[in-house]
């Protein structure tokens, strides 16, 4: 228990020189699939998937790479959705300005929440973020601009940069896809950067990192704010996709859901959270019209994941023989 517990994994995918071609091919297939997907699948559903995928990836930036489990990420996601929706609908801002406001708002929120929460680690941190996001939930419940139970409805998608009409579903899809790819690139760069290296070492041995002269709390706060901002990006986009912002996205259950997505796909992997988000969203959609009670299934999936499937889908894949053959190396 104390001391030598197995940590939350971080997988590092290193591209094997020889396997580079296979991986590039894989990447090309994924890219093509994403570009063509709306021809076959429901665009709104796909956009939802991308938005949640980005949200989960942003969340994972914190959990997978700094070992901080936030139980309050819904505040950034849902908060940003409100900010964006309000700016676009009430103030008539353009969509990009609205999303930017959402991102900045989420980052500011992250700064405040993070500054309080990073004073403690591990489960303490989780509990504190949970409590703080709960405060934010009550704020949203009561604040006039959120319209309480009704939510902000009928948000216009507007014109991107004043030119591109986003009310067209396909246009909107490619816009969301672009934002998604951009978000993932930012995360990838962030993780594989000198800053990311310091984060990793802080996770491994905080005292030692301090004694090497790193002001640990600033690095953690930096990662927290970054994660919050990206979660905000996802939230802002989601508000435009669905054209509303409601309380559901700021509840603690939503914070729990994003954890499930990440866990299911693979903590500490870049693709895992996206895959996990896809699964959860699909499952919820499927269960909506089936006779299975959603909560029970979600709960059981959670338990099974933790008990036998901790690496998540992508994590297990990387560790599998096929994964290794394809040139993925898992370091954990």
């Amino acid at each position, binding site marked *: 228990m104390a001391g030598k517990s197995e940590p939350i994994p971080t997988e590092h995918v290193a591209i094997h020189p020889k396997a580079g071609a296979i991986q590039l091919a894989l990447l090309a297939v994924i890219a093509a699939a994403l570009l063509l997907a709306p021809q076959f699948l*429901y665009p709104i559903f796909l956009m939802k998937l991308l938005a949640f995928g980005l949200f989960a990836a942003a969340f994972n930036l914190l959990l997978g790479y700094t070992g901080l489990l936030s139980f309050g990420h819904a505040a950034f996601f849902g908060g940003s959705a409100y900010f964006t929706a309000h700016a676009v609908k009430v103030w008539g801002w353009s969509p990009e300005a609205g999303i930017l406001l959402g991102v900045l708002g989420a980052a500011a929120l992250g700064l405040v929440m993070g500054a309080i929460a990073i004073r403690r680690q591990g489960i303490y941190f989780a509990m504190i973020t949970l409590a703080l996001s709960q405060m934010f939930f*009550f704020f949203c*419940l009561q604040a006039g601009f959120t319209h309480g*139970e009704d939510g902000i409805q009928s948000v216009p998608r507007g014109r991107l940069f004043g030119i591109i009409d986003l009310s067209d579903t396909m246009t909107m899809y490619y816009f969301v896809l672009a934002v998604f790819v951009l978000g993932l690139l930012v995360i990838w760069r962030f993780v594989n950067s000198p800053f990311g290296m310091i984060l990793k070492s802080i996770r491994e041995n905080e005292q030692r990192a301090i004694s090497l002269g790193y002001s640990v709390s600033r690095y953690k706060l930096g990662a927290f704010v970054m994660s919050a901002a990206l979660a905000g990006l996802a939230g802002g986009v*989601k508000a435009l996709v669905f054209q*509303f912002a409601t309380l559901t996205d700021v509840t603690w259950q939503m914070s729990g859901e994003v954890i499930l997505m990440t866990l299911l796909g693979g903590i500490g992997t870049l693709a895992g959270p996206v895959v996990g988000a896809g699964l959860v969203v699909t499952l919820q959609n499927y*269960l909506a*019209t089936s006779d299975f009670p959603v909560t029970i299934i979600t709960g059981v999936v959670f338990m099974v994941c933790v008990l036998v499937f901790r690496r998540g889908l992508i994590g297990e894949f990387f560790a599998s023989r096929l994964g290794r053959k394809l040139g993925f190396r898992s370091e954990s």
Partner: protein
Amino acid sequence: EVSDGKVKIGILNDQSGVYSDFGGKNSYEAALMAVEDFGGKVLDAPIEVVTADHQNKPDIASNIARQWYDNEQVDSIMELTTSSVGLAVQALSVEEKKVTINTGAATTELTGAQCSPYGFHWAYDTHALAVGTGGALVKEGGDSWFFLTADYAFGYSLEENTGNFVKGQGGTVVGSVRHPLASTDFSSFLLQAQASGAKVIGLANAGADTQNSIKQAAEFGITQGGQKLAALLFTLADVHGLGAEAAQGLNLTESFYWKRNAESEEFGRRFLERTGSMPNMVHAGTYSAVTSYLKAIEAAGTDETEAVAAKLHELPINDVFAQDGRVGANGRLIKDVYLMEVKAPADITEEWDYYNVLATIPGSEAFMDPAKSGCPLVTQ
């Protein structure tokens, strides 16, 4: 002639969350009953009912609604419990040009600023609840009020509306206290209400909050002390859950009661047979909504949205739920609602026989005048 050769109705609501007893799976049963009673066919086309659990998430609801409309030839979606879902699906249906009939959500926004040419609001709304309980109770002698209000928009609007009717009838509001949503303990607030000396304590909250307030009010001897409790949103299902012991003497408003007349009783017993519980206004409302929609198709001779919506606006609504009901230009069904009082346990003759109907409030009083609703579709 009917598009795709059949008429398909979707019942979209919460079937696993906090509102699952309010409408839930039983609303789907109500819709099935309506279809069966209608004969299973309209304009010779078969009628089908599908259902989904939106898990109280507007995005899931919105996704399903789109899929239903685009891929599964659903013609109309009904029930739509909870405001955020109701508004979202109604807005989407304007875009998709489909009829929605909301029987589960309370917000007057549906037929107010965010009204839709194809959107209808059927069973009740916050305005009717406020008039029913606030206005009618004053006439019964409850002329000084204290509110226990859930601290969010829904609570405020219930309190404000009700307070206005209380004052309009010559009553006074002596005070109010706002409690957080999902509080477990109401004793502090109840003590304040008790101390205020008001004759009526209005519970401007919902669900578990209302249940717990009522239960704890009994514990603190509030009703024995001569004060009356009035729940502003409470249905038969809630009374059943709470038990008549704790609920006795409670006043509330519903737009349906199964034991009100022979016809409703017959319907109620059939419903009980199928579901194990008696219908509340949401269930009966859903039955009525489906029936009215089918009648409108029949009258229009087509299931084309514009024509059906026009017929719905035009035809009088007469069924077990509504007598001489009519639909306002904003989509609001205007019908009578009833002020109830929960019987003392000793007076209850059979299970589910909870209410005395104290007063009938005519639809024109209960519901907002469409012209004043703020709906942009209403032309003066």
